[in-house]
């Protein structure tokens, strides 16, 4: 998709493939692609909007729309110049079934998900958590540099939004550097705990472990749970792994062929 569009991000989507797969195919999210906006659905917000190729591919695989649509990534559909773009570079609110929020400006999806979680509490009142929708929000580790994220955590903990699970793709890179070179040296997990979140740490490229963490997070009360998923940026493609330059570099034809050969072996 990225190669064909000539733009987009690859390292993040590759690091988080197991996370999205665990969410959408691990039985942890209750959704019905034939009724994508059902009141009863679980909500997934991709706050790190630059992972859009991964989100679109996962939604297509899950049956929200035809796989063939993926060829339209970043392409204008039909004569309309604005609304025609179903798969824009960064996700836009309900541009296709399954896309819950406009994201890509980091931090904003986190607050949006908090808004959904509090809405569900308002609508369902004291009804048992098991019967009410759940909200899952994925963000990246670089995204935690946005102050808005911490405002959102603070509010979510104070309001005891235990129907909300945060996930962090800790792939340790951002656009121009390693996250460790840009953030303070205090451990991310310690900061999250200090904010009152229930922290789970997991090997984020291990599908089974991510699934188990999602199951566990569902039972955490009364504060929201955050699952820190330790991943490898550019996972599965040796020449991309752990390299900040692949955060937003578009592979050329040769690089793409090499990458696909490696990825199909997994």
């Amino acid at each position: 998709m990225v190669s064909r569009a000539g733009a987009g991000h690859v390292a993040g989507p590759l690091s988080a493939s197991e996370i999205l797969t665990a969410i959408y195919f691990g039985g942890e999210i209750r959704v019905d692609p034939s009724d994508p906006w059902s009141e009863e659905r679980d909500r997934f917000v991709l706050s790190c909007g630059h992972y859009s190729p991964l989100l679109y591919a996962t939604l297509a695989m899950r049956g929200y729309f035809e796989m063939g649509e993926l060829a339209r990534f970043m392409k204008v559909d039909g004569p309309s110049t604005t609304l025609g773009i179903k798969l824009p570079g960064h996700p836009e609110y309900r541009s296709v079934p399954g896309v819950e929020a406009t994201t890509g400006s980091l931090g904003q999806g986190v607050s949006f998900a908090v808004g959904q979680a509090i809405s569900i509490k308002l609508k369902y009142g004291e009804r048992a958590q098991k019967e009410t929708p759940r909200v899952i929000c994925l963000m990246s580790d670089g995204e935690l540099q946005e102050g808005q994220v911490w405002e959102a955590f603070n509010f979510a903990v104070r309001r005891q939004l235990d129907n909300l699970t945060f996930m962090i793709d800790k792939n340790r890179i951002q656009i121009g550097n390693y996250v460790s070179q840009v953030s303070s040296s205090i451990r991310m997990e310690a900061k999250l705990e200090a904010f009152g979140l229930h922290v789970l740490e997991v090997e984020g490229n291990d599908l089974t472990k991510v699934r188990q963490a999602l199951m566990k997070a569902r039972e955490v009360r009364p504060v929201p749970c955050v699952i820190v998923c330790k991943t490898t940026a550019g996972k599965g493609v040796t020449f991309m792994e752990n390299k900040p330059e692949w955060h937003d570099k578009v592979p050329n034809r040769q690089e793409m062929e090499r990458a696909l050969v490696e990825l199909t072996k997994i």
Partner: protein
Amino acid sequence: MTIRIDWRTAEKRAIRDGVSTGLAAIGSDKRVVVLSGDLAESTRINGFEEAYPDRFFEMGVAEQNMMGVAAGLASEGFVPYVSSYAVFSPGRNWEQVRVSVAISKLNVKILGGHGGLATGQNGPTHQAGEDVAIMRALPKMVVLVPADAEQAKQAIIASYKYVGPVYIRLARPQTPNFTKDLPFEIGKAEVYRPVDPQAGKVRVSIFAMGIMVYTALLVAQDLASEGIECEVVNVSSVKPMDRQTIVMSAKKTGKVVTMEDHQTAGGLGGAVAEVLSEECPTRMEIIGIEDRFGGSGSFDELYRDFGLDTDSVKARIRKFVLD
């Protein structure tokens, strides 16, 4: 339409007080929720808090998160009213308005308190002079500037009936509450004092917003005795703008003055100029804050210093029309 009530003796009320009566009028709808940026009393949303505590959210001093949460609530069918001072919301969180609310066309209503120099002593950090400019630049954002407490109430009711993002600019001081029984509609400018095409030799249109509408009426009355006939138009709907009424008035008088407690760059004057330069090029005098920040003075002191008081405005208009 001419103002029927005796507007000169209208009792004084703060525009922000209209927030509490407006929210009271729509509060029984369970979809209405109010988000507060730790200024509930000052922004007059505390009445809603008392009446509907379950639908009132104290978000703390965290405006970016507040706007994002409002977008999430709107996506779930709620009608959030987000309240703070305009410098903070939509000032500090403008990008959250842009991405989470406006691009998504979500049904969020933004109440920006303490608009303009009228804010007074708190000084330029708290006086929003750019909010109309930054909000009207956002595609499909409705921008309303009520002229008094009654219109603030009407604006809230109108925003509730309208589906989509709306910004309402409010103000702090006690000013005459004079628009009772006058119509208010999104997208409509109202002619409060029409010029009689037969009367007087010198004619001018005054397009004003917010507190300056009342000043315009006072000025028009005084200038009439000097032979200058002013058509006073309340442009409380800055966006969408009532192009037809603006153009008709400009054609009738041939000269236009705009009045706003806001930066002249990008505010009401700019918006009117955009319309007229395309449809009816007209000489304009744009009265507002001219490329300065405010100061820490009283409402009256600041208006005098910035040339927004009745005498300064009259002098500007005289010079403009008689030159």
